[in-house]
């Protein structure tokens, strides 16, 4: 996976929970592209269609709170979300996203500086986020090297497969 991403933003508010990201009734679906058809549909039924072109989700505090369902970040990833930038994340969602290779970055203040439709550029290794449309730049703490490595490999499973003794 490339460590630099560009794309238009779609913005949401605080406390976007995993039931809203992917409702429980769809958890029996196994095909991630089927999950993707329902991503964030209760907030915006058109979201899966909008995300298809490749978007960056921007949100407020506590993004992904609630259930441990990995189907939530999977639905976002397969809908076309390239990364999620939020003021803060619920911890299980944060780990799940990294583990399935969906980059997530905590960026305090981001939700006040981005509007839906703004063109964003993100450099994970450097911890740089740029709102190209508004000409604003943010520096965030970079993720620890072993997490960047998991993301670069495309997820935890791919990362584990590379390790010789799998431990």
């Amino acid at each position, binding site marked *: 996976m490339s460590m630099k991403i560009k794309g238009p933003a779609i913005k949401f508010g*605080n*406390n976007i*929970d995993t*039931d*809203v990201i992917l*409702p*429980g*009734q769809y*958890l*029996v*679906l*196994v095909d991630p592209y089927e999950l993707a058809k329902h991503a964030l549909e*209760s907030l915006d039924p058109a979201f899966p269609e909008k995300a298809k072109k490749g978007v960056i989700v921007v949100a407020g*505090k*506590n993004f992904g*709170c*609630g*259930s*441990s*369902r*990995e*189907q939530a970040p999977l639905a976002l990833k397969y809908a076309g979300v390239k990364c999620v930038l939020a003021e*803060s*994340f*619920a*911890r*299980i969602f944060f*780990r*799940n996203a990294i*583990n*399935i290779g969906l980059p997530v970055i905590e960026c305090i203040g981001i939700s006040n500086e981005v509007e839906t439709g703004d063109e964003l550029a993100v450099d994970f290794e450097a911890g740089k986020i740029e709102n190209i449309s508004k000409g604003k730049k943010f520096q965030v703490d970079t993720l*620890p090297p*072993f997490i960047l490595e998991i993301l670069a490999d495309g*997820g*935890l*499973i791919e990362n*584990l*497969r590379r390790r010789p003794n*799998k*431990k």
Partner: protein
Amino acid sequence: MNITEKILAKASGKKTVRPGEIVDANVDMMMVHDLTGPLAVEAFKKIGVEKVWDNQKVVVVLDHQVPAESVKAAELHQTMRQFAKDQKLRIYDVGRGGICHQVMPEKGHVVPGTVIVGADSHTCTYGAFGAFATGIGSTEAAAVFATGKIWLKVPEAIKINVTGEFQEYVTPKDLILSIIGRIKVDGAIYKSAEFTGPTIKNMSMAGRMTLCNMAVEMGAKNGIIEPDETTRKFLEGRTSKALPNFESLKSDKDAVYERTLEFDVSKMEPQVACPSSVDNVKTVSEVGNVSIEQAFIGSCTNGRIEDLRLAAQVLKGKRVKDNVRTLVIPASQEVYKQALNEGLLEIFTDAGAMVCGSACGPCLGGHIGLLAADEVCVSTSNRNFIGRMGSTQASLYLASPATVAASAVTGKITDPRKLEAKT
């Protein structure tokens, strides 16, 4: 160090750990269920490891979509049964277990001082026994299957000191709703919530489990309570594993906390979390006139025998309101049988409630008792998010078993203390 730090230090082979430090911890026990397990199995197969690291340390519980409500769910169950068979894992199948978070301690898989991970966010329930327990996702579960290890950031801790005696019909559920109402749903993100104080000391395991269960609803990594004689009594005859010295699991006097919050329950009123956030908490009298179509008593938060006794005490000799459907779901087969023996199921049935088999039920909107648009449900479960129990147009209120039972009788959200006064 506090209790969480002590457990994480031991699990990672260190003398001490500090908040913010990332440790590689050995996992003592893990759990997957029917909705998170299949993805974990699929991911595990991709890693290229034949066997799970220790088949005595992995438990499978089928509880979310049971009995299978669709062919798709049946196939997920089939996947998990096959995996359990291939790997020689303990599996609690339909009719043999119940809700994972009730089954795990009941069947002796939860031991104080251990590290437990589960592919379910409410795994934090086991903190009630003085274990470090936290929820993980499916891919992470696959990695634990393969390695028996997990990286964890040592959390900062919030101390929640609770004093006072509960009034009648005011419960640990009301306490935890009140705590979340103050801390808010993001107030404990990445943190440990340590419950302590005389009220906790005097609380049953059921009540402690309700508290720790909902720690995740304020974002906490884990909820935890020092183990004591109440813990030991619960575990007696349930686990064959050696228990650690509980003295070694007490937080040190100079343990560091990010902050300490004080709660006095002696004047606490029944609490209700209103739509659609768990921190939108009001006292039952502030809620006002809210008519309901469904009442649900059950879930990993409040489906234990103590909860059912309380609900039965309220419902005994009464009928639920004509236009209200009431569902009662004992959290496990053991709870079901106990409720049967104590005559509680008869009380529920006579009251016009439907008693269902032990499972997660409507809590997560999978099946059993989903809601249509514009319907209102008052529930003893743990989340009232939009669409959680079916239609995105439905409304969910969270409350204690006493408040839900009283509401079922009157058809609107009701203070259980006032219902008693009337009859």
